[in-house]
């Protein structure tokens, strides 16, 4: 019974996941084609403006742009199933190759950033809750509020200005120095600034959430019972309060994925970091349809995947979510 229910739940999730991806692809496809602007410009550059109507038609035909949108979409979908996502108009190469060459960089930057935020936010939140309203907490809160207000791009600029341009400690752009693709130390040096920017600008928002959630938990009555047993404060905080906060924290961090990813894209642009962030924003600007489709799909899949898996993890570790009937009963009681 239990395993059957679990499989059912899993199937539901997978279906939801696929449906979301499909809807996303349709939306992006239509919206991008509604946008004014000429995709031919990105393919032919300035030449596109001087084309004769016949030439245009021939070019559009070649790129498959003159069919009705739904036909174009079906065509794209068929190709996509075969693994062919078309070519980029601007870079004139297979989008898969184009993205594939850069995606690693983005995943590295965003992934490490996300993990750091995840761990540090938890630690900082617990630290603040432990020292509630004492000096340490107040100081961290104040500094945190300020850092969380600074837009990423400006923090990046200030970082470059101070550490790269003035002090010359760190490189100002790129993922590696020319000719040193395989030098690990060089890569790490290039990662330091963008990574710090991503972590600093996102950290406090989540740490503050953890802090507030913990402070709420600490005010619950079960804390008294736990302390009455003879547990010390640390045992209560970690064994009871933090445990109860974790499910909410997982869902929160799932929602954090799009934000951190968005932040990564911005930081990549400022640091001219060869990731997909710069590509995304260029593809939207220059009507590079095929590239845009792949990138949005990729972003969407990461985000939806994280959401679905966070939900499943939360349900695994939080018995409260499994007791739907009980909760509904209580809700009825309150009506």
């Amino acid at each position, binding site marked *: 019974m239990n395993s059957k229910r679990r499989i059912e739940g899993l199937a539901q999730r997978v279906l939801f996941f696929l449906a979301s991806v499909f809807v996303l692809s349709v939306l992006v496809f239509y919206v991008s084609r509604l946008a004014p602007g000429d995709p031919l410009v990105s393919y032919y550059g300035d030449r596109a403006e001087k084309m004769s109507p016949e030439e245009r038609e021939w070019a559009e035909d070649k790129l498959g742009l003159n069919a009705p949108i739904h036909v174009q979409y079906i065509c794209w979908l068929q190709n996509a199933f075969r693994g062919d996502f078309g070519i980029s108009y601007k870079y004139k190469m297979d989008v898969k190759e184009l993205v594939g060459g850069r995606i690693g960089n983005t995943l590295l930057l965003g992934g490490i950033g996300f993990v750091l935020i995840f761990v540090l936010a938890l630690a900082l939140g617990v630290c603040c809750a432990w020292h509630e309203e004492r000096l340490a907490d107040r100081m961290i809160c104040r500094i945190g509020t300020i850092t969380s207000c600074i837009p990423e791009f400006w923090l990046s600029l200030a970082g470059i200005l101070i550490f790269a341009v003035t002090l010359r400690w760190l490189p100002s752009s790129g993922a590696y120095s020319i000719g040193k693709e395989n030098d690990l130390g060089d890569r790490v040096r290039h990662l330091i600034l963008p990574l710090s920017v991503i972590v600093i600008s996102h950290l406090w928002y989540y740490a503050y959430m953890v802090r507030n959630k913990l402070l709420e938990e600490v005010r619950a*009555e*079960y804390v008294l*019972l736990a*302390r*009455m047993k*003879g547990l010390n404060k640390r045992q209560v905080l970690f064994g009871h309060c933090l*445990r109860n906060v974790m499910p909410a924290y997982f869902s929160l961090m799932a929602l954090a994925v799009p934000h951190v990813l968005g932040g990564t894209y911005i930081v990549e642009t400022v640091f001219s970091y060869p990731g997909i962030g710069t590509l995304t924003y260029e593809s939207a600007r220059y009507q590079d349809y095929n590239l845009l489709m792949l990138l949005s799909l990729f972003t969407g899949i990461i985000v939806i995947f994280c959401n679905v898996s966070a939900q499943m993890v939360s349900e695994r570790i939080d018995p*409260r979510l499994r007791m739907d009937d009980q909760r509904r009963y209580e809700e*009825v009681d309150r009506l």
Partner: protein
Amino acid sequence: MSELLEVRNLSVSFDTPAGEIQAVRDVSLTVKTGEVLAIVGETGCGKSVLCKSILRLLPDIASIKTGRILLNGADITDYRERDMCRLRGRVFAMVFQNPMTVLNPSLSVGAQIAEAVKIHSPGMTRLAVEQRTLELLRLVKIDHPEERCKQYPAHLSGGMRQRCVLAIALAAEPELLFADEPTTALDVTIQAQILELFREVQAKLHMAAIFVTHDLSVAAMAADRVAVMYAGKIVEIGTTEEIFRNPRHPYTWGLMRALPALAGGRRRLYAIPGMPPTLIDPPKGDAFACRNEYALAIDYEEQPPMFPVTETHFAATWLLDERAKGLEIPVPDFGCSDAEEERGELAAEPDILLDVQHLTHVFPLSKKETLTAVDDVSFQIRKGEIFGLIGESGSGKSTVARCIMNVYRPTGGSIIWQGINVCNPKAFHTHKKLLQSARQIIFQDADDSLNPRKKVCDIIMEPMKLQHVRPPRGTMRAEAAFWLQRVGMDAAYLDQYPSALSGGQRQRIAIARALSMEPTFLVADEPVAALDVSMQAQVVNLFKQLQEELGFSFLFIAHDLAMVRFLCNRVGVMHQGRLVETASAEELFRHPKHPYTRRLIESMPIPDFSWGVSERRQDR
């Protein structure tokens, strides 16, 4: 018996922005091994704070100002947190008031008990811990302990959860168990079971216990000795027999007389006038003086010390002073006098005002499941009658009230109010205005039933404005002032917000709002359940008085049998959505027919107050 715990002149204060709250003032008491001491008092009198300060479970803003706490003769007042951790669980344990919130919702019950077992015997094997957990569950009489172990608190009923909390408290066989209102949040029948279990376990393990309660009858059943607290001080302490047979403090008199179980046919409940003082800057003299009809002049000037009555019985009232001897104190009349006054029985059979026929209400829980909250309920209410509806929580009594008031549309059956079928939307709309002004409702939690962002006068005026009533006393405001005075409050409260008022005052405002429409039918859904004994008596008296004056019909919903018996003409008993018995109040209590009614009445904690007034007169 040796003295296990001794508290000497303990004072505890809370440091708040509004000032220093002196929650416990100069309290001294002792508890001997194996003895049960009950601490009785109203909300905010400091009884919980006293217990928590001994266990050192109070928040940082609270501090012990003066006094010592001795455990087996050793001073533990200055123990640090680490030392207290070792005492908690092993020496002290505590059972809390609300079993619904006190267990961690995301840990299984077994894990929570096992945690308590492990912490004090770190060397135990897993198997031994498991064995001990099951043993504890059996000790608190939980059936199928192996399965219950794996369940989460949400799966268990309130009584079960309280048993689990008790099991956790007993895990390390403490020497002193604090029970902070352990039965207050539970239903009457469950309350009796838990009380029984508590006494059994206490005798079996030969523990000492401090039993905190607001309910004198519970204290009488559970304790060897009783301490009465008021405004942070112990005003009277003695053995249970001494306190109940020979109470000496006027506050104890008041508490006892306010019990509806002892009203025994009197027209009014005795109510202690006024309200307890705030403990920020408490009054100079005796804190109870301004509510005490026997107050002496010195009570307003100087706090009374503890006067010994016998070796074990002490009371803090100047009435016991040498100099007050010879004063003629009108001895209050307690006791259930048998000379019962004839209840205002309705002479003839008046017309039927409300006819509920086969009322059924089903809540959908999910696509498959439903919850039948009300199942085929039929009853009538006559004009000018007070009809009581009693039952435990979840028995569907509130749902009945809400169906009658058109908050829910019932799934089946009909409700006929003066010939109008209010369940029929069409009929309801044609008579909307009449129905909405002639029927009014009062809720349990006055906290929640008054909009916190409106002033008192706006709250009282709301129904009048909605129904465009032309105020008979000139302006709306005058009208509001009139009704406020009618419910015993000063017109000065008109511009206050509800948050500045006490629970009893808020309930009065809810009453004023309902009555301002001069309804012919009033529904009150547990209107006094959230109030203290003395406030309860005030509000119930008010209901009775207003009903006699205004003559409205009244549906009174409660879980307190004694209250219903005192107030109502006829009573219906609800159990699991069904109305199992309807009878006149006296008839129901004297000759209950349905087994459930019998069980309810048996579980009522009625103290054995067989002391006579004559006895007291003799020793004067």
